[in-house]
């Protein structure tokens, strides 16, 4: 049972700050959208705008980190094991089957995670950032007057931003749940807090053995 340093300090900081910001942006955003009431409309707008700029700053740092460390390669989608991983979540997990993907420092994500996170990074987040920037700045005060981009109103921008928000909330629910599907119920959470995770394959191998005997029993 060897503990390995899986998540570096910046990575954890980035993850938790992003989590806090996205939750906060979600609450204030859906208040602006008219779905909930919490802070009061004017405060919600103010908080949402401030949080969004903090988020932009964080994104800039995260992009820098991903490219300088080469960690961006973690998110390259792959076909390998994709089907096996999906089958694991649909069937295997109930039979206590082993994880089909071996987690290591060099490959932290399973193929489904790679696909979903890549989707977030190249599609959902950029759409949210761009539509958010347009939302905030399509009217921009200059020295003596307020000018406006010629974008025919907010309709399209706001719809895109809302669709993105629904996708992020949906992701958030699944993401919270999948924390519990690690080696133990809390191992993923502990890893993202401390950075260390037991990546020893021994228990997995024992699980494979048990699984094989179970399957042979079923066959017989």
């Amino acid at each position, binding site marked *: 049972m060897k503990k390995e340093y899986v998540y570096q300090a910046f990575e954890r900081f980035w993850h938790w700050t992003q989590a806090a910001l996205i939750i906060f942006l979600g609450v204030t955003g859906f208040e602006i959208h008219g779905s909930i009431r919490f802070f009061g409309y004017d405060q919600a707008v103010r908080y949402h705008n401030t949080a969004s700029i903090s988020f932009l700053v964080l994104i800039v740092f995260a992009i820098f980190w991903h490219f300088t460390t080469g960690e961006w390669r973690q998110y390259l989608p792959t076909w390998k094991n994709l089907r096996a991983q999906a089958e694991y979540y649909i069937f295997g997990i109930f039979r206590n089957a082993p994880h089909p993907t071996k987690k290591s420092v060099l490959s932290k994500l399973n193929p489904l995670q790679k696909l979903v996170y890549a989707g977030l990074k190249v599609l959902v987040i950029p759409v949210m950032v761009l539509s958010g920037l347009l939302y905030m700045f399509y009217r921009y005060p200059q020295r003596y007057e307020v000018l406006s981009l010629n974008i025919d109103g907010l309709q399209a921008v*706001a719809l895109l931003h809302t669709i993105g928000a629904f996708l992020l909330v*949906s992701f958030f629910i699944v993401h919270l749940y999948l924390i519990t599907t690690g080696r133990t119920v809390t191992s993923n959470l502990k890893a993202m807090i401390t950075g260390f995770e037991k990546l020893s394959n021994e228990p997995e191998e024992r699980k494979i053995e048990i699984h094989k005997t179970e399957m042979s029993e079923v066959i017989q």
Partner: protein
Amino acid sequence: MLTALLVLGVFFGMMSVALHKNSSESTPQEKLKEQYAHKVKASVDHSLFPQLKKKFIKPQQVTAECISCHNGRAAEVMHSTHWSWERVEYIAGKGIRPLGKRTVLNNFCIGISGNEQSCNKCHIGYGYANAKFNFKDSLNVDCLACHDNSSTYIKAAGGAGMPDSSVNLSYVAQHVGKPQRTNCGTCHFFGGGGNNVKHGDLEKALFDPSRNVDVHMASDGSDMQCVDCHTAEKHQMLGKMYSVSSMNRNRVECERCHSAMPHTDDVLNKHTLKVACQTCHIPTYAKVNPTKLYWDWSTAGKLKNGQPYEETDSSGTDVYMSIKGSFVWGKQLKPDYVWFNGTATHYLVGDTLDPSTPLKLNELYGSYDDPDAKIYPVKIHRAKQIYDVKNNYLIQPKTISNKPGDGGYWKEFNWQRASEEGMKLVDLPYSGKFGFTETEMYWPVNHMVSPKDQTVKCMECHTRENGRLANLSGFYLPGRDYNPWVEWLGGGMLVLTFAGVLLHGGARIIIGRKRKDTH
């Protein structure tokens, strides 16, 4: 986690510092208050002029004395709409036409033709009793109506602009100066035959208002006078009303003093592109006394024992008058809101109408897509007024009666006769068949600006249900608008996701227990 929160805090700190502007020196607002706290005192004491101490028989003699020193000023007044009661305006679709009290109809007392003796009490001249009034005679200019500072000058009811017999002309002439709220208010607060009947935001409460009623005119505040905003160059006043005009010119704008970006918060400043100042800063109008919202002429003419009568409600407001019909009044009203680009159309005497829909006498133009348009607050005055059923145009009835048998409705209560006589005066045929049709007038609300803490709150417009702007369309308003497809699909996706997670997790727990039992 702790470090994460710490750095997050630093982020927020940096951002809020960056987003808030430094405010050490006095704000533009404070500078304006200082500027208007300084009240100008007259440089000359008119009570010392011997030529004003004599006894005046006719008011024209006062005018003669005024212009003997202030030469040329009467000519300026005679170029103003206060005098001409019309201005040449371009109306989209109708061309260049004279517009003004002299020519247009409204849905209150309808029009001045045939009724000059009464209506023209508020003309800035002496003796405009009929269409033959001499607009060229400078001695007919009434200097005192605007420049009386003694608050004793009043014009006679039914006197076509002549002063009331009680007025001591010599005393008034010795106490003249810059126009005060009392001068303007005497006419502009009482248009339509009573206090606050027409505008809703101009009424006698503004003679001595509190800050809550009007931050600018507040006696206990800046105590600004009408002419502080409605400035005049050569007696041409800045400002006009869309009841009698149609072009985007000569408007008094808040921005002239307050700039286009008066807020410290840029989110609010961005609103100024599409939202007029008045929209947020005048949350209610008719704050003190009621204004007329509906006037039904069709019920006029009921008599008791052959005599006209009046009915008032519990608050003492007229709700029925035999001479005018029935009314609905309102107090502390939320305005209606329209897109308005500064131009309006106008119903002109003789224009045909469609009796199946309410006729808009002065429709205000504008839409979200119009770069010149902003959302403005308006009072909508609705009425049922008389029209020619065969010719399909509004009737100018003769209402007041100068002599027996002249058809004046307020004496004879005969619409047929009032219509015949009235239509003669506007040179239009009358078919002999009259009816009543619904009309609407749009009155932009510009006065009774509230203190800052009473402005319209974000949630009053940015809300899904019953917001102030619920009736405005053609644009996306955050908090009010949404796409039902996105809401249903998005909401459905969240429900399914949540249900899926619960099922999956539940199954894991149950199967896990069974496994423990079997092993």
